[in-house]
């Protein structure tokens, strides 16, 4: 069960990192076009 919590934390970390990588790319491209 405790390891399940760790697994969920890994998934949450992955989701947050990928979303923020998308935000990074969006900000870069948008600010370059502005």
């Amino acid at each position, binding site marked *: 069960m*405790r390891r399940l919590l760790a697994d969920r934390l*890994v998934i949450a*970390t*992955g989701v947050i990192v990928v979303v923020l*990588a998308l935000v990074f*790319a969006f900000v870069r*491209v948008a*600010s370059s*076009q502005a």
Partner: protein
Amino acid sequence: MQYRDLVRKAVWSAIYLLFILAPLFALLAGNLPPARNFGTEFSVALGYSGLAMMGLQFGLTARFRHVTEPWGEDVIYHFHRRVSLLAVSLVVLHPLILIAIRSEALALPDSIWDIPWGARFAVLSIASLIVLVVTALWRKQLKIRYELWHLSHIVLALTAIAAGMLHMVGWGFYLVDPLKRALWIGMTIFWIGLLLYVRLFKPLFMLRRPYRVAEVCAERGDTTTLVMRPEGHAGFRFKPGQFGWLTLWASPFRITGHPFSFSSSAEAADGRVEMTIRNLGDFTSAVKAVKVGQRVYLDGPYGAFTIGNPTDMHVLIAGGIGITPMMSMIRTLADRGDTRPLVLLYGSKDLESLTFREELDTLKARLDLKIVYVLSQAPDGWTGETGRITAEVFKRHLPPAYADHEYFICGPDVMMDAIETALGEMKVPLARYHSERYSFV
């Protein structure tokens, strides 16, 4: 206590994410080169975050007590293994996306000698990461000796991170800016510093605080207890249920120490500690050959697995040599004159392999302790429990307010998985479980 642990978990999770993402978003500050297309920028962001995640892997295994305490060392190591897959996926996705969008950055020159150094380091970094993950996931199948694997694991991780950093610096672009370059080089030095902390600083500390083996006691079930006393220092205090890293036959600088629970009472005098080690056919088979007077090194205490609320019934569930932390709890509570109700469910192969059986039966007189032995190979005439520890065994021996008790579980992974499932079916809340997996390295 639970609220405090929850806050500590949230704070450390936030710090972890900050260390991954803050250096990435710092790249957006100041003067920027013209942006490339969305796919390229996204893939670059994944590469940077993946490398930061790999670097922080050194922090997860650096044995920082404040970091590991709210989770337990076994959970941290589990996270370390799982998140490495995520980090490697992000790093590998970086070139894959560039290939998919046919980025000009991947255009091959006419001659192999014209390939820029930045690209060569990228290949070296990714290749090291892939070998690192394959050897970590399939070490046993590949028949790699643990000590050799551990050394190669560190070398591969250092190569992957150093080559990743050289790739970023060599490629330029964001890191052309001297401040950003300094930040990322500083981050790399910090990650390597985490490794040096556990491999250099801690061993130096241990070298100055050695222990001496005072007794070597043979126990039931091909098991040996090492009684160790601090030499020239006061030792450390531990909580019953915690563990330490033991280095035998070598200096503390040796790459591989082994984690063992303390089996002695936390109230033992003069800093004396005991570890009880079963012969599992690996290096543990040589423990019985340890001589009295031998110098050993201990790094500890670690672990969040320890006794809980004094008003709750404590249900201690041990499988095989998983009895050792329970023994420390029982001995400590006896020494403290503690009267909380205790139930020990102790699963083992047969009567002969029930380590500490006689002492446990004696300790019942000093505690409110009920012991239930569960034998998988019971002798003729045995009237006790047989088979495995299941929900049915719980129901036969525990008072029915199951969710009110605190459960402490230590044993082989298969047993722990089965018990955790059984407790879930009995509607025992997760906050009432305490467990430690001794096969976490």
